[in-house]
């Protein structure tokens, strides 16, 4: 069953390495991001991507959100989360390479919990990524409820899940 607007966003635990402002080269301990507890009472944008360091995700999807993170937060968004089926070390390295700092929480769903709970995973085997990967989506969640959900019809492209499109509905 696939999640849709109006649903409660499922509760799963993702993991991320927080940005260390004092010493950006030193890794802090990984933290759990609970999508129910940590999203309660907040407005959150969650963006799912098929893969860290992949061409579309790296060239188009993430940089636009990094550039527009402040603009998104100025519209009442408390947290921006980028997630994929990679583990949290990979997400952290990807975030570092894109200069994310503390603007976006780069959370890993390596266990596939979010993909299973939302139904938003696809078989990306023919791209060399594996049989169960999060597909490209962007969700606006308000106090746990999915306000908007955009799923990219062709996951190798960025159209409705772009930062600009999110800004237009916020």
């Amino acid at each position, binding site marked *: 069953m696939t999640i849709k607007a109006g649903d409660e966003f499922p509760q799963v635990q993702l*993991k991320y390495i927080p940005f260390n402002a004092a010493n950006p080269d030193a890794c802090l301990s990984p933290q759990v991001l609970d999508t129910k507890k940590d999203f309660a009472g907040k407005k959150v944008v969650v963006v799912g991507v098929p893969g860290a*360091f*992949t061409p579309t995700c790296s060239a188009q999807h993430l940089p636009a959100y990094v550039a527009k993170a402040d603009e998104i937060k100025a519209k009442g968004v408390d947290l921006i989360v980028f997630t994929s089926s*990679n583990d949290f*070390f*990979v997400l952290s*390295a990807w975030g570092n390479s894109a200069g994310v700092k503390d603007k976006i929480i780069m959370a890993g769903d390596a*266990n596939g919990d979010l993909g299973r709970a939302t139904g938003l995973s696809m078989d990306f085997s023919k791209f*060399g*990524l594996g049989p169960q990967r999060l597909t490209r989506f962007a969700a606006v969640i308000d106090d746990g409820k999915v306000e908007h959900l955009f799923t990219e019809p062709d996951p190798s492209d960025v159209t409705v899940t772009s930062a600009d499109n999110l800004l237009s509905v916020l």
Partner: protein
Amino acid sequence: MAIQVGDTIPNTVLTYAPYNPEHADVCSVPQPMNTHDAFKGKRVVLFAVPGAFTPTCSETHMPEYATRAAEIKAKNVDIVACVASNDPFVMDAWGKAHGVKDSVLMLSDANGEFGSAIGLVNDGTKMRMGPIRLARFAMIINDLKVEYLGVEPARGVTVSGAASVIAKL
């Protein structure tokens, strides 16, 4: 039952993004690589890591092989390869981060086929690293037969490190 010295390595498909010297910063399209086709008749040093971009793998294991790849090849080795459970884009990015160019072939066992076939995988679910992760080991493979196998017994890099492998070449 895990693979042992004297066994033939399984015939599985791994993927990799080929190194393109003209476009060193750009990711090339991942290609499939059949282990038997690629390693037949060759001497291969294959080291496996639990995860690209993780502390031990990045600080200790990979750099040793990256800096000593030429030394290894001078001892009658045709291919030095690194394999992990990450996908080929991640392996490519990690290789680039360590400046390996074409000295170390960065292989992806994203489906866990290779690791499962040789019985050297661990469940990383508790660490939120996913259910199938390759263990840390190094192999010397000669014409598809395992000549040396060093499976790391605990945290850290000892029998699977470049120094241990070079001593056996």
